[in-house]
């Protein structure tokens, strides 16, 4: 299995943000394996976690995500993130 990593984003919470982020991945044919998103700070911002395969394009993807106006911070968890461990319980 391909090595996976989790990208953690802090973003402005409005209806277009998800399409900006997903569009970046989609137009480079870079599959997003898992997504979780929750509002923080009373709803003005959101946290998004993206579970992706760590191929050679990942650094370029992270730079592109970081350029988005509505993305305020980008983090990376190479050893996974428990949000996806919990979600995995739902899909068995």
């Amino acid at each position, binding site marked *: 299995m391909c090595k996976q990593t989790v990208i953690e984003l802090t973003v402005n919470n409005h209806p277009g943000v998800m399409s900006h982020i997903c569009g970046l991945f989609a137009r480079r044919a870079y599959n997003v394996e898992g997504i979780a998103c929750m509002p923080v700070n009373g709803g003005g911002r959101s946290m998004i976690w993206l579970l992706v395969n760590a191929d050679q394009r990942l650094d370029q993807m992270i730079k592109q995500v*970081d350029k988005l106006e509505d993305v305020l911070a980008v983090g990376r968890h190479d050893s996974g993130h428990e949000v996806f461990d919990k979600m995995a319980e739902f899909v068995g």
Partner: protein
Amino acid sequence: MKLSGAEIIIKLLERQGVETIAGIPGGANLPLYDALSHSSIRHILTRHEQGAGFIAQGMARVSGQPAVFFATSGPGATNTLTAIADAKLDSIPIICITGQVPLAMIGTDAFQEVDTYGLSVPITKHNYLVRSVDELLHVIPDAFRIAVSGRPGPVVIDVPKDVQTAMLDFEAWPEPGGRTAGPELMAPELSHAARMIDEAERPILYLGGGVIQSGSSEQALALAERASIPCAFTLMGLGIMPMDHPLCMGMLGMHGARHTNLALERCDLLIAVGVRFDDRATGKVPGFCPNARVIHMDIDPSELDKIKNAHASVTGDVADSLKGLFSLVERADRGAWLDEVAALKRDHPMIIPNGDDPCSPYGIILRAAELAGEDAIVCTDVGQHQMRTAQAYPFSHPRQWLTSGGLGTMGFGMPAAIGAALAAPDRMVLCFTGDGSIMMNIQDLATAMEHDVNVKIILTNNNALGLVRQQQDLFYGKRYFASDYARRVDFVKIAEGFGIRAWDLGTSGDPGAMLAEAMAQPGPCLIHVPISPDEPVYPMVPPGAANSEMIGGEANV
């Protein structure tokens, strides 16, 4: 104070210093136009929204300032997309403000409804769908800040009709949005780069549009002269240095001169500044500067290591980086390397066939340049005429050269030339175009006529899609298909029908004199130059090949 959304937009644009807006009204942006009618801002009514977008681009490319254009919802918005995508690829700061159906009707397939926000996501630097009137107070200044800060680019603001008519009571105007400072330079990055330059025996500066965007042409020239570094330019970088400067090697890449591509093959250090290693510039990447270490300087971190891994990268405004490097790099004369470059230039020069015949594809460019003088702005469409102008025109300063580089949009030239003339009314604008390209925005000849802009359109007509035909000639066994037009149109009559003076060099006994006469008249004109379809642009690197594998353009054959 209490104002409508439309009035707030117009007032904010005035406060940003906007003087001219191109566009077309329609149902969904009429409140905006009603507010514009009370403004000091001049409106340029175009015949197609793509024309409005390229007029904005022409203004922005000449001035370096963001330019604004308007379109209505639905077809108005979709018509703008090509001009916006073009601005994205060439990093041009334009702001497109579109009307949208009222908020409650969004998503109902209302009349003239299209998802402008969704359509513009991949072709803008940023975009907005404004959902309440109070958002305008930060969206408009933010749009200007985003368009010009860092790596410039286009911004779309989609404003539903009821947001335009909604009233807002507010206390104070926001500050206009402007360019924010680039990222701080890292001193170790810079000194590492300087050391590499000092150690290099055969360095080349590879300079692109980023140098022009950052207003740092002088710094690039100063660095080149201090360390005796020959310079190669991307299509977007032409004008950074006068073409007759001893260190200038002209354009590199697919239609670059032989000596330029051969020198790059030989260099041991490539100093890439404000460039993005576009495939038309590099050819096959492993074959591009195969013997060189690479320094890459750019304001956009995502360009670094994207195509070619750099041995040293400098993130930041290249104006700052070049200034910093200048004081760190040692003076050098590099006599042996400059001799080698000069020998390459002597043995493999740029061949300009029939340069002294004003009815030849290159000759018309050179003669028009002579007549227009150094101060002229030069605009092109896309195709053979564009590559010939890039190869042969004696550019002398930055922002003199306007061309669609990244997207390669046929139809760019004439409306962009109108925009250039509006932004610089006291300069002559040359617009080199072809019969294929001009037809893609011919309607805005009417706009050129109405505003009496000083645009001299020089149309080389081979009744064909020349570069397509050239590829069929070279790579598809001369099977010319769908690249020759079956019948001819009369461009002289077309121009005259639009109320524009036209001259046909093909019917003249003294074409040189006719050209001079045409260019001496005020206002717009069209100069028609019939040429053969069988005149390829050489040299040419086949798509996918290394830049050393050039076809044609050889001396002594």
